[in-house]
């Protein structure tokens, strides 16, 4: 058959281009595109085949656009779903905008809840992250020592024996490094001024094991020698006004002697979430500076209050449990026989750095401890507030849904099925949730400084992408969780049900009622807890402690050289006693200063001297107080037996001992007057009197046995262990003027005359006593705020519901008004919705509150009596608040002109 001119030779375009095009191009356009491309190809092929091919390829690439791409089934689905959500979003947006009031109520209530939740989350975040930022933190452990005594009592300490670190490093190869950490109050002199400040003493590898930054100086060797001092940035500013101070001099008083230290480096301030809150650091390179030869030699005995904590760095993948045997054999070899009285009576254990802060089972010498209990309480409060806010939204939405029955009906008639509607309404609640969380974040940021003050701690708000994502995720969660139920309810409206105007199944009604009850219960709980906590605090602050402390001021004195005999601290004490006497003489010239007394420890301090000794295998511990003869009278402490100190009596001065009732019981003395303390090694002394028990420690504890004397040496001879606290004498006096602060300039003047180079400070004893109850006050502040928030949220909910109810029953209200109903009737009508819920809430919350309160009060040896009053008060309060809220709405409702209502 002859081939005509019309028959063109079919040539193939580049195969790769074809395949590529078929690969990416969507089915519904490939025909026209490929067709055109082929036409062009064939056209230009005649002129130049190669150019034709190139142009073809180029064109294939040119057509590679989003709009031409193939959509696989699933990606098509995502695309169509996406546009669906956008549509839903727009619908939701319009709906919310139309109902501004309702939307605002919803948004604000969730925002408040979220803000509270967020702030509390910050606290929990911080508290659980202590010292996790060090690169080696997983391998760092703090050591503790537990000695089991012959009487079965064991003593657990984190002050550790001096040789422990070195011994562990030498004997156990898995211990790579150890660091020592200690904090002590020290007199710091710069130029002519001396103040008492906190100083840390650490081993010189402190900065290489832990990740604290050195900003100035040699990061590898921050301590040049044993007389170097490293300052944190804020302390450099405190002393020198700037941080460029390498080479400057500070004089510190250690063990009664002044030494000069040269600033060799500046460290960055420790972050708030670290238990090592260092200020100024010295190194242990020069050990003998801090400890006497005796202490260094007999380091395994007597662990003093001035011993450091020891931390070890273990090798990779080494667990402390694996080292138990090695440690036991080390103990047997190294620890002297008379310290480890029996086998296995001397135990050394480890605590991982990351878990120290929240571990309440071990005491802490210097590392800052937090409390898990407190975190649990905070967390519960935060969660509760958020849940209450969300429940608010749920109940409001359900109620609002009544207004939308027409909308649902029409949607269904036009063809929406239930799933579509669910998606629609869910989108609505997600939009609200996103708005609310945004607002909540703004609230949280605004309230952050106030919150930090309330909880007495510093927080960090990290504006990281990670956190932003977490918040958005939470917002979605909240939106879905709160929106699910209302969405289902709304979408379940059947068209016939709408026509019949019967909307809710009885289940929904019960659920709605239940939610309101829950809100009221939590509000009531908060109110009663707050009331009771305040009561307890009031009790703690005003209870009779057994001594009079009003208008009492205490002034701490400094050592002015050592005096007398006995152990070091006693000599320091006697030296300072001289200064006390000088000050007393100077001040007694002024008529308004009276009731002078001198004591080694003062009311309101947290460390009291604790001594212990053994007799017949039994261990006795007691508290110890050194006084002048006027102390007991100055504070109006009553004697129950024998006599008080006579200032003229030398016998009283050298040998007189006074016990409190608790001590008499403790030592089992029937007729204590004229007798001595049990124990064989005491010096000459005689018990001359017994005082009525007074609360020298905080009311958290019951009254401990107390031994009071003027001459400490007699007693000190007979004891084995001692923990002395802040022992330098304080001069106390009562200021009889009307304005307490007037005494300050007089005090300053006299002080300057006597001790010009020492910084003067004084404490008002009344205020010092309050410092015992910081955590209670903090808890009180927190619960007060939580109460306020929950009442606000519950009120918002009630407002919303009442509004809706009024809306729904407009006509009924109008008719009643026309028939002559008074405001009160309208109020009754509206309030009826909540009557039952309030009563129920009251009944439920009482046992719960009672349980929590008992739990909390068990922390105190002495507590206030909780009558029924707080509970009744809380019930009344919340009823009152809700009543007011409903009342306002009912007045508004009653004011509406009935004619207008009925005309509709």
């Amino acid at each position: 058959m002859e081939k005509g001119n019309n028959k063109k030779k079919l040539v193939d375009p580049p195969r790769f281009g074809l395949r590529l095009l078929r690969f990416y191009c969507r089915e519904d356009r490939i025909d026209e595109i490929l067709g055109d491309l082929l036409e062009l190809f064939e056209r230009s092929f005649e002129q130049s085949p190669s150019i034709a091919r190139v142009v073809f390829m180029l064109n294939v690439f040119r057509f590679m656009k989003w709009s031409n791409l193939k959509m696989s089934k699933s990606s098509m689905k995502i695309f169509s779903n996406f546009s669906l959500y956008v549509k839903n979003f727009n619908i939701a947006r319009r709906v919310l905008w139309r109902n501004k009031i309702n939307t605002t109520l919803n948004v604000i209530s969730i925002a408040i809840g979220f803000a509270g939740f967020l702030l509390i989350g910050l606290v929990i975040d911080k508290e659980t992250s202590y010292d996790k930022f060090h690169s080696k933190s997983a391998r760092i452990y703090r050591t503790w020592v537990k000695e089991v005594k012959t009487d079965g009592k064991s003593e657990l300490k984190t002050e550790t024996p001096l040789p422990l670190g070195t011994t562990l490093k030498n004997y156990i190869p898995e211990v790579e490094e150890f660091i020592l950490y200690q904090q002590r109050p020290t007199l710091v002199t710069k130029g002519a001024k001396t103040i008492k400040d906190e100083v840390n003493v650490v081993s010189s590898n402190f900065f290489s094991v832990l990740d604290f930054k050195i900003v100035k100086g040699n990061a590898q060797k921050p301590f040049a020698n044993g007389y170097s001092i490293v300052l944190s940035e804020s302390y450099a500013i405190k002393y020198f006004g700037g941080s460029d101070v390498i080479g400057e001099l500070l004089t510190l008083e250690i063990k009664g002697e002044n030494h000069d230290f040269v600033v060799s480096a500046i460290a960055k301030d420790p972050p708030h979430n670290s238990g090592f809150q260092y200020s100024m650091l010295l190194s242990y390179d020069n050990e003998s500076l801090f400890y006497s030869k005796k202490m260094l030699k007999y380091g395994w005995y007597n662990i003093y209050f001035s011993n450091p904590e020891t931390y070890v760095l273990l090798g990779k993948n080494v667990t402390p449990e694996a080292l138990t045997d090695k440690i036991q054999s080390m103990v047997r070899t190294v620890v002297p026989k008379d310290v480890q009285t029996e086998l296995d009576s001397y135990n050394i254990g480890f605590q991982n750095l990351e878990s120290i802060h929240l571990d309440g089972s071990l005491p802490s010498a210097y590392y800052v401890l937090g409390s898990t209990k407190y975190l649990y309480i905070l967390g519960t409060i935060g969660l509760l507030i958020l849940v209450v806010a969300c429940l608010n939204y749920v109940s409001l939405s359900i109620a609002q849904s009544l207004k939308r029955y027409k909308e649902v009906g029409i949607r269904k008639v036009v063809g929406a099925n239930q799933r579509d509607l669910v998606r629609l309404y869910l989108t609505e609640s997600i939009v609200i949730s996103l708005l609310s969380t945004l607002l909540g974040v703004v609230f949280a940021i605004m309230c952050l400084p106030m919150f930090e003050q309330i909880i007495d701690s510093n927080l960090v708000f990290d504006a990281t992408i990670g956190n932003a994502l977490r918040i958005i995720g939470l917002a979605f969660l909240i939106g879905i969780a709160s929106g699910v139920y209302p969405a289902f309810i709304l979408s379940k409206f059947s068209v016939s049900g709408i026509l019949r105007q019967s909307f809710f199944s009885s289940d929904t009604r019960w659920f709605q009622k239940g939610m309101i009850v829950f809100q009221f219960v939590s509000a009531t709980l908060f109110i009663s807890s707050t009331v009771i906590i305040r009561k307890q605090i009031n009790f703690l602050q005003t209870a009779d402690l057994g001594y009079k402390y009003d208008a009492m001021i205490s002034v701490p004195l400094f050592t002015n050289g050592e005096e007398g005999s006995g152990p070091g601290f006693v000599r320091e004490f006697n030296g300072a006693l001289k200064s006390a006497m000088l000050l007393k003489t100077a001040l007694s010239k002024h008529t308004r200063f009276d009731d002078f007394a001198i004591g080694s420890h003062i009311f309101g301090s947290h460390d009291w001297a604790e001594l212990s000794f053994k007799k017949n295998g039994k261990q006795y511990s007691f508290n110890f107080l050194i006084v002048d003869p006027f102390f007991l009278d100055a504070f109006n402490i009553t004697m129950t037996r024998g006599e008080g100190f006579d200032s003229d009596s030398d016998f009283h001065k050298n040998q007189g001992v006074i016990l409190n009732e608790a001590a008499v019981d403790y030592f089992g003395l029937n007729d204590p007057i004229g007798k001595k303390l049990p124990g064989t090694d005491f010096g000459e002394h005689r018990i001359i009197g017994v005082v009525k028990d007074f609360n020298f420690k905080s009311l958290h504890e019951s009254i401990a046995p107390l031994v009071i004397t003027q001459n400490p040496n007699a007693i000190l001879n007979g004891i084995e262990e001692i923990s002395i606290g802040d022992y330098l004498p304080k001069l106390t006096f009562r200021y009889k003027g009307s304005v307490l602060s007037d005494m300050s300039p007089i005090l300053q003047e006299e002080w300057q005359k006597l001790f010009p180079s020492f910084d003067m400070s004084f404490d008002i004893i009344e205020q010092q006593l309050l410092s015992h109850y910081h955590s209670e006050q903090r808890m009180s502040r927190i619960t007060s705020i939580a109460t306020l928030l929950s009442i606000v949220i519950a009120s918002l909910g009630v407002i919303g519901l009442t509004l809706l109810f009024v809306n729904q029953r407009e006509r009924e209200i109008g008719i009643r008004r026309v028939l002559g109903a008074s405001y009160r009737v309208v109020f009754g009508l509206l309030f009826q919705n909540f009557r039952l819920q309030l009563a129920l809430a009251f009944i439920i919350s009482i046992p719960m509150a009672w349980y929590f309160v008992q739990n909390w009060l068990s922390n105190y040896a002495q507590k206030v009596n909780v009558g029924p009053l707080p509970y009744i008060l809380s019930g009344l309060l919340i009823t009152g608040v809700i009543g007011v809220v409903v009342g306002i709405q009912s007045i508004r409702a009653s004011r509406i002109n009935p004619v207008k209502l009925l005309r509709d």
Partner: protein
Amino acid sequence: MKGNHLGELEELILLAVLALEPNAYGVAVMDEIKMEAGRSLTISATHTVLRRMEDKGYLTSEMGGGTKTRGGRKKRLYKLVALGQKKIEELREIRLKFYNRAEALNHSLIGKG
């Protein structure tokens, strides 16, 4: 509504479709514009604008007429719709108005056609 104004290219393409009816499809429109206006368009640009004009409602299209030359692939044939015609008319009015004014004011302006 946004995007109501016709760009120059879009106007050209609408005119080309008008001229080529009922055979207005990708390659033909591209060739026509090359011939009449001297503008070289890529085939993908042409397709894009044609599609956009259809989305805006100035054109309609339907598939039709596959020949052996295109490997049997059908073409998408475009047609001007009422809205599109109106748009073109409007533009023509506006242009004429301006040209007339210009002529009235400036005799030196020499216009073709």
